[in-house]
């Protein structure tokens, strides 16, 4: 067997362990981002007038600066300045989550705004408070419409998670590079890492498509927004 293949096979279990960490980072970040993004989107669409520009400001800030800069800023800067001791892993999840919240909020906002105005009116006409109407009528529909956007966001965060290697998070990229510098089998190992990412992307997109199908409203045609 060629040496390169052996190196890859040898490293494979180690890299797959890394995939697990990658997935935890990605899912953690998406979950955290989701929890932030929903209120952000609702605030931007239905919130008081003074709040809307603040959400826009948040989005502008977190979409305008590179992930790597945020990682350094939080890990080396803010954590030290504020004297909080967070692991690289935690910082990675938080930073990816804060950035993802900016993007996800815009996905949800688009979805909310694409719903017909009558949905909110009908809910109000039944005596629902705006909070109830948003919670029980608007969000269930908007979140369904957001799944394709989510799928996109997943593949972006998955790839971005490789950047957390810069903080030493032991995900796929870090492990690949570590093995590569010791075995000098750079090319085959990077190819393997690339393949793992392709598989993870594919799996995630399949999973979300399955979810989309699963929660699809019968007869309802999703219009684009």
């Amino acid at each position: 067997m060629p040496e390169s293949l052996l190196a890859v096979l040898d490293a494979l279990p180690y890299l797959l362990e890394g995939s697990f960490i990658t997935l935890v980072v990605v899912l953690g970040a998406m979950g955290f981002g989701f929890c932030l993004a929903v209120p952000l989107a609702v605030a931007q669409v239905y919130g008081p007038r003074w709040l809307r520009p603040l959400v826009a400001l948040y989005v502008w800030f977190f979409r305008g600066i590179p992930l790597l800069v945020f990682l350094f800023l939080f890990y080396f800067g803010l954590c030290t300045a504020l004297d909080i001791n967070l692991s690289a892993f935690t910082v990675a999840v938080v930073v990816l989550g804060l950035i993802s919240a900016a993007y996800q909020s815009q996905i949800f906002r688009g979805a909310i705004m694409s719903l017909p105005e009558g949905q909110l009116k009908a809910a109000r006409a039944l005596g629902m408070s705006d909070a109830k109407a948003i919670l029980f009528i608007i969000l269930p529909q908007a979140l369904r419409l957001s799944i394709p956007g989510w799928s996109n966001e997943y593949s972006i965060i998955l790839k971005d998670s490789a950047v957390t290697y810069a903080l030493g998070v032991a995900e796929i990229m870090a492990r690949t590079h570590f093995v590569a510098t010791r075995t000098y089998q750079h090319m085959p190992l990077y190819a393997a890492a690339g393949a793992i990412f392709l598989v993870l992307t594919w799996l995630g997109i399949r999973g979300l498509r399955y979810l989309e199908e699963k929660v699809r409203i019968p007869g309802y045609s999703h219009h684009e927004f």
Partner: protein
Amino acid sequence: MEEPILKVEGIKKRYGKKEILRGTSLSIRRGELKILIGPSGAGKSTLLQCINFLVRPDAGRVWLEGKEIHHAQGRELHHYRQQVGMIFQDFNLFDHLTALRNVEIALVKVRRMSRNEAHDRAMAELERVGLGDHVQKYPAQLSGGQKQRVSIARALAMDPKVMLLDEPTSALDPELIGEVLAVIRDLGELGMTMLMATHQIAFAQALANEIVFMEDGLIVEAGPPEKIFGCAENERTREFCSKVMELYTDNR
């Protein structure tokens, strides 16, 4: 004379420079079916939506059973809206819920009924509008007439004291109009108080207690159907009525 169940006075609404409602007043007594007619753009929808504050009037007062509604306050507003049913021209069923859940949801979330109680009530209302067999369908799987009947069931389940109906049949294909009008007629016979905007002249003629003709944000004339359709005082009323009647007879 009996006190009106719903009374509105001096409702004004403007969008930008354009005055849509110019101080409209009307009142409905218990069990009455009052029909609002007028050309498109007259302000009928705006008036109906102002009555339950889906559109905020710039001025005007509203009383339900003699009690004035101060619409600025949340809880009172939500309570008031529960007592005023609203039927929209384009149904506005909740697209992500089955017919049954559409009727149940406000019972559970707003009136805090138990799921079981809400289920039974919703089933009863859906059967009443003739949809007992379609309760598990989603809005996109129902015909227009069926959708509008679900929306009527949804409003009825809240035990409204008054119903506001905004052209409930205008979005329907001609062959589906009858089934919805039949439901509304039955409601009237059971004594439901209703204020309805419509162009269904024959229906209005046969069943309305009073016809209100509106134009340019003002009530031009009101009276029993025989008077409005037969010998209206106002020139514009006569013009409008003859035009709609012509259209209606053409359709037959």
